[in-house]
């Protein structure tokens, strides 16, 4: 009977994992260039969820959502949410991080935490003002379950999340490896001052990093809202921490590491949530899955601090 639920558990884990992976990319890209953890990234994800939900709610209120192809609706929602959160990320960098670039490393970190609270309360305030509540239900676009050859049925929305996340990850990988600005991004991450000798405007590359990382985070917010149905201004906190854990697990600063780390963490979390209870005779139930996730973070930091794909930091001579 434990095996009966396995396909469902795996699909849930992958759905969650791919979302962690895309959000983790945002942490790891910024870290790769600035060696700075953008703790407001989880909140950018949350803003994406709200922008996407608002787009769908407003479209629905106008009577345009019914009869619209769900893929078209999702595409429009993703584009708008990505654009808004991408711009938001660039704005935050300009206002809250760039002026602090020469400061001790703790200072921008505190600024990021400040931005986090600001975004949470801003969204809460705006929604409370506009809708009298800040818990929103997202119109669900995909409702049909898909049958997996009679073994299990999975909800279509999970599959949509996974496919779109993969598309975003492939697109980012191509961008970073094949385009001039993508290579410049890696060059800046490896040696900022030498990159500027090549006529590369480092500030522009950093802006671009925030634009892409935040846009991906915002798009994931839309996917999250589709998958779970209900959102609130605080969803970014725990998901952000998990995605950060995934980035550390894979090796912070490493794109492939963030992707693998995210999927791995999602799977582990889902499996532990489903099986920890039965395997320990109920001593540890599904409610311990977060403990499990963060235990992984601590173990990685203790025994392999450079992560699965990271390189051990060499002292610079």
């Amino acid at each position, binding site marked *: 009977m434990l095996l009966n639920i396995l396909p469902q558990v795996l699909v849930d884990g992958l759905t969650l994992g791919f979302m962690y992976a895309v959000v983790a990319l945002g942490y790891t890209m910024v870290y790769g260039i600035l060696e700075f953890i953008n703790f407001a990234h989880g909140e950018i994800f949350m803003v994406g969820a709200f922008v996407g939900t608002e787009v769908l709610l407003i479209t629905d209120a106008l009577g345009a959502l019914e009869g619209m192809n769900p893929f078209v609706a999702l595409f429009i929602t993703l584009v708008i949410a990505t654009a808004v959160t991408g711009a938001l990320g660039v704005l935050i960098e300009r206002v809250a991080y760039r002026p602090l670039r020469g400061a001790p490393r703790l200072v921008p970190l505190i600024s990021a935490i400040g931005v986090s609270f600001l975004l949470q309360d801003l969204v809460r305030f705006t929604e409370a003002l506009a809708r009298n509540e800040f818990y929103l239900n997202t119109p669900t676009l995909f409702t049909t379950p898909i049958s997996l050859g009679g073994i299990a049925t999975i909800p279509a929305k999970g599959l949509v999340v996974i496919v779109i996340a993969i598309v975003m990850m492939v697109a980012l990988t191509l961008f970073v490896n094949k385009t*001039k600005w993508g*290579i*410049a991004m*890696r*060059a800046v991450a*490896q*040696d900022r*001052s*030498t*990159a*500027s*000798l*090549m*006529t*590369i*405007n*480092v500030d522009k590359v950093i802006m671009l990093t925030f634009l892409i990382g935040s846009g991906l985070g915002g798009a994931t917010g839309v996917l999250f809202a589709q998958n779970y149905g209900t959102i609130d201004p605080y969803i970014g906190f725990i998901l952000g921490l998990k995605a950060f854990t995934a980035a550390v697990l894979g090796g912070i600063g490493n794109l492939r590491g963030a992707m693998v780390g995210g999927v791995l963490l999602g799977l582990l979390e889902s499996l532990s949530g489903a099986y920890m209870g039965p395997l320990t005779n109920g001593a540890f139930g599904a409610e311990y899955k977060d403990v499990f996730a963060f235990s992984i973070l601590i173990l990685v930091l203790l025994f392999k601090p450079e992560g699965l794909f990271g390189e051990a930091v060499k002292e610079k001579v």
Partner: protein
Amino acid sequence: MALLELHNIHTYYGGIHALKGLTISVEQGEVVTLIGSNGAGKSTTLKTICGQTRAREGKIIFDGKDITAQRTHDVALMGIAHVPEGRRIFPKLTVRENLEMGAFSVTDKKVIDEGVERAFAYFPRLKERINQKGGTMSGGEQQMLAIARGLMMKPKILMLDEPSMGLAPILVEQIFDIVTELNKEGMTILLVEQNANQALSVAHRGYVIQTGEIILKDDAQTLLANPQVREAYLA
């Protein structure tokens, strides 16, 4: 008018007065070398020219324009290629990607491909290594790549910071041959070196820098024969 002029440059490095009223010039088509011992201010001079450290006093004129307060990438855009000390290859980019970054300001794909071909003509070794990561190459290969990368932007002046550092004598020879060859094709070069003998033998003129001040300037041949220079830097 000279292509590059530094007038009375004062630069501070932390609390240290690193350059004390430096005045040098490089004419179009010249190879000029700046020699001096470790810590004399050679690298600081190049870094000040390209805006990586700021001159607190004085003026830098390039191609008739004041670039003293320009940002580094804008200085580079004007046609100053700085091949930094220690080569500073992007270790995780391939040879080809390193070269492409050198040509970041070039938008014409054809010009970039021509540049890559030209780099391979100068340094055939790089062609064999085209898909190898920069960080996995030997010091000599990295230096070749660093110079080739500098040339990719088609600069008006090439500034080389200690290209011979840490290289075997045969490679040093090769690097200086390339300097001469580039100059014959019209490239203006500002060469910073501790290896005074080699540097003066390929340069037209030289400056001797000591604790942030120019203590001697003359034709390269005259400096080579100068007993003071011979004793201090050619021993």
